[in-house]
């Protein structure tokens, strides 16, 4: 499909929904408004609030803190996941011994940990980073583990026949193979890092987007909640496109990734 047509259709969907929202909350139909603006706010109010937030400049601090928490959770979680993924994939015994514990820890709903982390790490950014970490770590861990385990035996045998030692195998074979798998989970991992940050803020903090939303909710400020959600949604899209750009650069060798430039 033509890119412009697609874009037009996407915008059309947004416009239709916004128009419906606007009409239902502001235009009286049969003598009364079908949706009460107190409970549902109105699109124009929400946009005005977002504008006010940015014009006032106070929102940047909250965005910055949420971004910092997301990046930290993602980075620390990824590094941990990669290290443990490699250790487990290369060490049969370690993997066998810890298997049930890893599964149990992964099955645990992370939200129940949030109060504990708040106790341990305080109400600052580190309790949110810890929550994001527990989400990111397992995604990256399982993917790296899988990636290292499923390296093509032929590529491995070939590399060995070329005389590579363990360190060279790690660098030229295992690491790039694991990286592919990791990148396939990157979008999910970044998303979870953000979820960890926002949920953590929501449950107890003094700054961040989650805090803003929570603050608005506690005074029944529906417009404020929707404005916070809108900012959050745009924030997610921006982060996701950054990830896509990095992925395209690093995985240029993968079939399909660079197919437009491949066949000259």
């Amino acid at each position, binding site marked *: 499909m033509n890119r412009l047509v697609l874009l037009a259709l996407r915008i059309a969907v947004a416009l239709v929904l916004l128009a419906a929202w606007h009409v239902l909350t502001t235009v009286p139909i049969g003598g009364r408004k079908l949706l009460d603006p107190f409970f549902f706010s109105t699109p124009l109010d929400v946009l005005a609030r977002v504008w006010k937030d940015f014009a006032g400049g106070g929102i940047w601090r909250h965005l910055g803190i949420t971004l910092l928490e997301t990046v930290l959770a993602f980075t620390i979680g990824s590094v941990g996941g990669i290290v443990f993924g490699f250790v487990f994939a290369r060490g049969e015994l370690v993997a066998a011994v810890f298997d049930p514990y890893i599964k149990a820890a992964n099955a645990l709903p992370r939200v129940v940990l949030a109060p504990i982390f708040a106790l341990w790490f305080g109400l600052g950014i580190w309790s949110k980073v810890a929550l994001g970490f527990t989400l990111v770590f397992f995604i990256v861990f399982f993917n790296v583990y899988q990636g290292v385990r499923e390296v093509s035996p032929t590529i491995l045998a070939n590399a060995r026949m070329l005389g590579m030692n363990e360190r060279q195998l790690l660098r030229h074979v295992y690491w790039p193979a694991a990286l592919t798998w990791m990148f396939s989970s990157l979008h999910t991992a970044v998303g979870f890092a953000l979820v960890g940050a926002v949920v953590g803020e929501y449950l107890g903090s003094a700054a961040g987007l989650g805090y803003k939303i929570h603050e608005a909710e506690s005074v029944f400020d529906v417009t404020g909640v929707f404005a916070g959600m809108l900012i959050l949604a745009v924030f997610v899209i921006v982060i996701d496109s950054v990830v896509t750009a990095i992925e395209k650069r690093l995985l240029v*060798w993968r079939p399909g990734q660079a197919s437009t430039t491949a066949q000259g």
Partner: protein
Amino acid sequence: MSLPPGDAPAVALRGVSISFAVDGGGAYDAVARTDLSVAPGEFVAIVGPTGCGKSTLLNVAAGLLRPSTGGTEILGARLEGLNARAGYLFQQDALMPWKTALDNVAVALEPQGVARAEALDRARAWLARVGLEAFAARYPHMLSGGQRKRVALAQVLIRDPAILLMDEPFGPLDAQTRQIMGNLLLDLWARDRKAVMFVTHDLEEAIALSDRVVVMSAGPAASIVDDFRVDLARPRDIAEIRTEPAFHEIHRAIWAKLRGEVRKAYALGEGRAS
């Protein structure tokens, strides 16, 4: 076997048997008590019915597989672990998909401690030798099957191994590409005449390329049942040599032997299937 006195064979398999453990107990004897000797500079093709253990034998010579009994000697020394003197060309794609053609070839020099800049220079020269200098920056998925084999060939040969082990390397290619690759291989081989073990199911390819064709019997417990010398003049052209009467004579002689083994293999296969 005509070996110059005092000159150890490049590869000597002595009394090699290989059995694999089968699920649910027991063992499957793939290869039984096989001897094979390849002289330095000799091009030996191994033919046999599908699943007879040709590749298994090659993996033993490579040190990728330990024989259940018997042993391997490489240039007079007993083989322990991987065969560092051998280059192995695999049937399947073995290039690292995350490296360009150039990097795939250059990385083969890293274990020898060659500096990166020099490795890249030598890799470029090798890519030129296999006719791919214009494709150095491409990743494997951007290359055709034949081009990938050329890169793999350069990757193996840049290390200058004394022995070349090839496991149906041109199997997945189409007929014309196989001929081109066969001629390229002979051309490169003629420069320094490494010892070659070349496994194939294609008898014509085997005769056209090699000095000796070894016939393996149908498995299980396969072994070498015959050994033919191919006295055709070199240099050869793979496509043209097939029209020569001497080629036909050798082909007839070997096929008379091979046909029986192929039939046996099919009969066993049918029996197993029903």
